[in-house]
């Protein structure tokens, strides 16, 4: 069951493929049957930029099964620059460095492993925006 569900949602997990509403133009993530802004049913796939900022966060000191080895880790509500808000784990950051408003960017990382013999699940996380000497 879980393998099938993970497989169906792989594109939104790997690369933040959401939707854009054909009626009101809002960007939507995750993809859904009707637009939450205008209830229009038809939407087109839309690749989100992956850039956003930390809206709120909490640091986990105990974790669900399969996530224990990543402790302690921070889960954040991230507001994407296109508007949608989503919950994701932060990575490449020490929990005490996280602050509200911190610019972050999406990366694809290992989310969990089903033991030594099972499947590796990959998906989006967010890290502090990489500092670049030459800006785009």
């Amino acid at each position, binding site marked *: 069951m879980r393998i099938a569900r993970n497989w169906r949602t*792989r594109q939104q997990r790997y*690369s933040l493929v959401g939707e854009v509403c054909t009626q009101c133009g809002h960007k939507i993530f995750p993809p859904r049957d009707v637009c939450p802004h205008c209830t229009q049913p038809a939407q087109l796939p839309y690749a989100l930029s992956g850039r956003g900022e930390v809206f709120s966060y909490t640091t986990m000191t105990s974790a669900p099964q399969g996530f224990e080895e990543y402790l302690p880790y921070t889960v954040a509500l991230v507001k994407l620059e296109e508007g949608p808000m989503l919950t994701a784990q932060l990575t*490449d950051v020490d929990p005490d460095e996280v602050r509200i408003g911190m610019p972050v960017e999406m990366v694809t*990382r290992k989310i969990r492993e089903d033991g030594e013999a099972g499947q590796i699940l990959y998906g989006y996380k967010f890290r502090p925006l*990489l500092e670049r000497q*030459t800006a785009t």
Partner: protein
Amino acid sequence: MNDRSTADTSVLLKPDREVGIVGYGAYVPRYRLPAAEISRIWKGGQESGLPVKEKAVPGLDEDTATMSIEAARNSLARAGIDPQAIRAVWVGSESHPYAVKPTSTIVAEAIGATPGVQAADWEFACKAGTEAIVACIGLVGSGMARYALAIGADTAQGRPGDELEYTAAAGGAAYLIGPAGESLAVFEGCYSYVTDTPDFWRRPHMHYPSHGYRFTGEPAYFHHIVSAAETLLSALGRRPADYRYAVFHQPNTKFPQRVAERLGFQPEQIETGLLVPFIGNTYAGSSLIGLSAVLDEAQPGDRVLLVSFGSGAGSDAFSLQVTERIVERRDRAPRTRDYIRRRQEIDYGTYVRYRRKLHTH
């Protein structure tokens, strides 16, 4: 010195159509383990002449697939093409996350290249990535594909206390190969030199590699790189002075310095691409990350010599000339030294946890 007038050009690997690099991208993880810290644990810190300053260590949620994805996204950002136009995604590594199940399908899906695409994993120790580049040159040069993506990436492991533990590191780079008319650097020719040489190996189900110690130097690394480079230069009628930059496989700091000197290159020619002191040996990523750092700084018209080495053993040598497209494309993605500057030092205990060394036998 080789006689240029009688150089054998039939040994060159060169396609009918001119082919080049349309986009490139690197990735180096955030964590660094200083060689002095490894020495502190195993040798009481009394060693002199450590092979590198420090090495890059992947986080708990990173592997060859995730590093390949980020490098590939950087190459696509520079190329500015639709990923649906890519016809091959080939990942060279000796640390694929699965024994059976391609890394390349995960990468192809994540960058939006599926489903009309070739996907396969390549293996040849530290030259698996340049093997994939040669194959991409063939695929694009024959006209079978407009674009093909080659990646070299590894999360290399050394047995605790072994000399390889000082250098075995993580990182990777991706090269989007396409028509010369769209390229930021054009391949002038390449050449592969291979023999059956048992300098380094890993049997199935073994976690750590074995190596032939002193055998890894002269008959393996130096013989293959020198032979590949000299044959390529001779076939193209070139001298070391024709090149602004040269990049050689980097298992430690001394080997590439020595091989450059032996071939007649000056220290200034290898300095830009010599990253091993700061990130360690990233195996299939090693020479390819070095090339990415060179492309970050090269100017139109500059020539670059790239020579990989893979144990077992062989070398792929490439002659490249940079085009004017480099100028506007290179800042569309992070530079390799941006990743190297992003640096979090860790101690040996954290390293043992991150690399799961207590789980393995």
